[in-house]
């Protein structure tokens, strides 16, 4: 020990830290079957809904193929399941996927490696949010492919305002960021209780609180609910315009900041086991 020299350390920049953390999350995402299973589920579900409801003898759920993506108008209160079952379902699948994804971090003990080399907890929140938002955005794409393919096979009506359709799809993809931050936050809170993590993600993902609130205040006044994630997700519909997309961006980014700050605070005060 007589040859001990002074040791210099280099402080990693924010970019280096985030790159390392994102590298881990994307590596895991692409190397686990879970991601591909959920992409497949996102593709199969709209195809099944569209295929089954149009080949049955009764009235079809949708008069138009694109209703599998979004309703014609923002329907915060819905009368039948067809008005609810659209691309917003991706956020429910996404919630379950995020719970499993983050649950594995804690279940495997890998967080010990992560938090030893990454002391800044916002790196974790940010990285998980970005990775999970990416996976949900990918699910939106496979959902679209599944829905359109089924629509083509069943010969359902394809008439649509293309601009509004693109905005609706983009709006929902943008909302993935906000939803991912919510699920990351929930899973950080319930990190020791995997079952509760999944249940809470499912609960919030269904938007049941917003639907309940909309039922009380009525559809006409429900635009106020657009400040919430589910509200904005519903607002991205087949009559959307550029303002709809702007609202989606603002709401999604706003909630992402809130949930990331809260999650960072929770993690900073928590023990890692």
């Amino acid at each position: 020990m007589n040859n001990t020299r002074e040791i210099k350390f280099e402080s990693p920049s924010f970019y280096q830290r985030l790159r390392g953390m994102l590298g881990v999350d994307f590596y895991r995402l692409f190397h686990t079957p879970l991601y591909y299973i959920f992409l497949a589920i996102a593709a199969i579900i709209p195809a099944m809904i569209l295929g089954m409801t149009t080949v049955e003898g009764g009235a079809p759920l949708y008069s138009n193929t694109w209703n599998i993506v979004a309703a014609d108008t923002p329907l915060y209160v819905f009368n039948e399941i067809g008005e609810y079952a659209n691309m917003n379902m991706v956020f429910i699948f996404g919630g379950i996927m995020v719970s499993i994804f983050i649950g594995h971090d804690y279940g495997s003990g890998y967080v010990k490696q992560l938090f030893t080399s990454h002391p800044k907890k916002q790196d974790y929140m940010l990285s998980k949010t970005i990775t999970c938002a990416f996976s949900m955005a990918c699910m939106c794409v496979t959902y679209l492919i599944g829905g359109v393919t089924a629509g083509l096979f069943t010969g359902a009506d394809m008439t649509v305002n293309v601009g509004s359709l693109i905005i609706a799809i983009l709006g929902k993809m943008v909302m993935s960021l906000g939803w991912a931050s919510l699920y990351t936050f929930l899973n950080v809170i319930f990190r020791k209780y995997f079952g509760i993590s999944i249940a809470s993600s499912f609960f919030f993902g269904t938007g049941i609180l917003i639907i309940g609130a909309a039922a009380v205040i009525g559809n006409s006044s429900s635009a106020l609910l657009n400040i919430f994630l589910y509200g904005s997700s519903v607002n991205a519909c087949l009559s959307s315009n550029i303002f709809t997309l702007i609202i989606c961006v603002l709401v999604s980014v706003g909630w992402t900041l809130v949930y990331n700050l809260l999650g960072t605070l929770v993690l900073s005060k928590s023990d890692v086991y």
Partner: protein
Amino acid sequence: MDAIVIRNLSKSFGQKQAVSGLNMTVPAGAIYGFIGENGSGKSTTEKMICGLIPKSEGSIRIFGNDHTDAKVRAGIGVLIEAPGCFPGLTVWNNMMLQATNLGLENAEEQVRATLKLVRMEGSASNKYKNCSLGMKQRIGIAMALLGDPKLLVLDEPLNGLDADGMRIMREVLTDIVKDGEHTVLISSHLLPELQKIATHYGIIRHGRMIREMTAEELSEDCPTFVALRAADMRRARSVLNLHYARVEEDIEREYLRVYDAESPEEVVKHLYDNSVTVSELFTERIGLEEYYINLMEGRK
């Protein structure tokens, strides 16, 4: 410069005080054996060093910097309890994941070299969940070694290792600290194994450091004794009690120990003079394990 300097460190979980006013100094370049009974606060201290649990009070400095500093934390390799690996991924993928986490430039090359170091290169394609306990420990050590960390924090790394695994571990750790730039903090209940490599020791009890010493100081504190086995052990003991102040019986190994003899020849002479035949005789120094047990039981 010291690798770790801890002052007045405390941690409580609700009403339970896990660590209480702990002081600890780990010199750079040391292999520091961190010893204590179950629940004494070893793992809690190690987790606080790594930033996995926030401290209640006190300070932890690593190479002169606060332990929460991102730049020093990037230079710590850990194996706390069990390796944090994803069971469904292969050994190689788990290692690559850690290399990515550390932002290593030549990740594949480093992973290959580290796996070779712990003799796991042939099992790289195995799924982690299919590995044996000993293999998992080696993978955990390999993960901790990735990126050439300046400080290694290893909590019970010897658990589950076979004789060959322990030998490899000893070689790896002693090689690492040779340059004086690397430091190892290692806790283990396998004290004879620890004694083969540790240069410094810290003994913790009820969350407090009760003794810190170098290997040389331990050696000075561990007396040598003459051990013998005689045909008539009872008679041998009564003869030796007449000449020596400290004669003890090692019940487990069926030896008599004479601590204050000048030489083995002198002991044999006393027994021979009293017609006691000696069948086995050797000198030995008490080990870390016995030293530790004596300390815990309040014996000198």
